């Protein structure tokens, strides 16, 4: 029992460190990503300044609050993008899926470990950007450690929710082989309803309801609202409970759907 646990831990930590190394290997991409993020921060800051030119508050948010929220959302925006769908498409195209399914590891667990290792690497890699956002645009981060803890807990829960949703959505790749288009659709819908582009409170009621019925906000709006000071700590237990319900439901659903749809798989070659 203990031995198999130890074996599992060593296998999954090897997977995690490989994923982190793979992410760090491509220097040029990191620089390009830095640059793109800085550009998008410039655009969003100027845009929101122009929006607030004649107003003091919009939907109860001041310019400073909105800019703080938006800067954090820009810095964390790639977190609501997805690689799971593309990964499924790649495996099917290359025939790699056959190997994955015969491995003596749980495939979903393996990929989730990889995804979270990448997430952690990504956050560390982006630290200089947080510094730049502070220097150029006056990004304010909370000094209360409890807020940071609330942020990290809701970020991890939210990212897990999003991962499980993507896992379920990616099962469409077994039917449709065009995964680039599926990813783009998912990123478009996801970035809007996650609150990565505009604070969700600014949306009209009916759009807020749609956003609440989708899992995306759990991975972006909920954690970022903690960090930018829009959500108070008193709301934390309620928000965590909602996230855990999402997590439990999607965990069951994603595994059931995967095990049914994977029977449909037709490998294209490889």
């Amino acid at each position, binding site marked *: 029992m203990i031995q198999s646990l130890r074996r599992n831990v060593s296998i999954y930590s090897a997977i995690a460190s490989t994923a982190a190394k793979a992410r760090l290997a491509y220097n*040029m991409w990191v*620089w390009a990503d830095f640059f*793109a993020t800085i*550009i*998008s921060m410039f655009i969003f800051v100027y845009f929101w300044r122009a*929006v607030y030119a004649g107003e003091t508050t*919009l939907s109860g948010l001041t310019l400073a609050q909105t800019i703080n929220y938006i800067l954090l959302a820009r810095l964390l925006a790639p977190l609501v993008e997805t690689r799971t769908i593309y990964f499924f498409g790649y495996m099917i195209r290359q025939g790699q899926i056959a190997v994955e399914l015969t491995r003596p590891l749980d495939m979903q667990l393996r990929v989730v470990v990889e995804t979270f290792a990448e997430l952690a690497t990504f956050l560390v890699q982006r630290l200089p950007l947080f510094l730049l956002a502070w220097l150029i645009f006056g990004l304010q981060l909370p000094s209360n450690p409890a807020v940071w803890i609330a942020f990290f807990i809701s970020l991890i829960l939210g990212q897990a929710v999003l991962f499980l949703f993507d896992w379920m959505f990616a099962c469409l790749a077994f039917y449709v082989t065009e995964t680039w*288009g*599926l990813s783009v659709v998912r990123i478009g819908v996801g970035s*809007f309803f996650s609150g990565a582009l505009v604070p969700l409170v600014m949306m009209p009621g009916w759009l807020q309801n749609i956003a609440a019925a989708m899992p995306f906000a759990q991975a972006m709006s909920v954690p970022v609202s903690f960090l930018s000071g829009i959500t108070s700590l008193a709301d934390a237990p309620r928000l965590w409970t909602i996230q855990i319900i999402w997590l439990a439901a999607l965990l069951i659903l994603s595994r059931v759907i995967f095990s049914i749809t994977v029977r449909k798989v037709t490998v294209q070659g490889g």
Partner: protein
Amino acid sequence: MTRYLSLYGYFLIQRFKILMEYRLNFFIGSASTAILQAASLATIWVVMRQIPSLNGWNFYEVILIYGLLTMGESITHMFADNLWTIGWNYIRSGDFDRFLVRPIDPLFHLLADRFCHDGIGNFVTGALLIGVSMYSLHVALTPLRAIYILVAVISGGIIFIALNLITATSAFWLTESIPVTQVVFNMNEFAKYPLNIYHNAIRILLTWLIPYGFVSFYPASYLLGRDAGPVVWLSPVVATVFILIAYRVWLFGLRHYSGTGS
């Protein structure tokens, strides 16, 4: 010239035969970019329904800027998408050498090799946005305006292609050019909004150095009868100058291409 046109037609037919093998994929690919645009547009709508104008530009006026940019972008997406993939798809694999031994221009061959259907969604979205905006603002489509839009959109597409061509040339040295292209290409996001919301330095950059302003902001200023000076007539000139520079850069890179040995 006619030879190249008929060759392009031939390439296009072959490409569509491939695309039609997977009809559902063709549809998803074409529609997916439109959904990405919908997310940005919904954002603008959510924000602008709360305020009367963005630095003097109302919702439909911003939509016109956005629509012009989207149409310009769709042209490079449809006809020059291979400038993105030249690194990993052609140079790294050695496939690029194939173009060099054929009796046609290698750049033409590269571009004609893959018409990209994913840009169709953007093309339709852009056209719709321009139409909706002009209709809502009661800007009549006179023959002069129609010609102006046509010239502006084509010039805009050429500006996009020229900038991507310059950055894609880096693939001859770096093998992978996407990060370089990405950096310059992303600057087009500035031109989704009126350039007068930015700091002067950004406006000058977007006008003379990385001239995405000529794709959207200046043509929109003309169509809406705003006083922006003679720059509103410069889109075709800027496009010509940039594409000529880009072609020289490309030729320079081509001379220094030595293959990857794969």
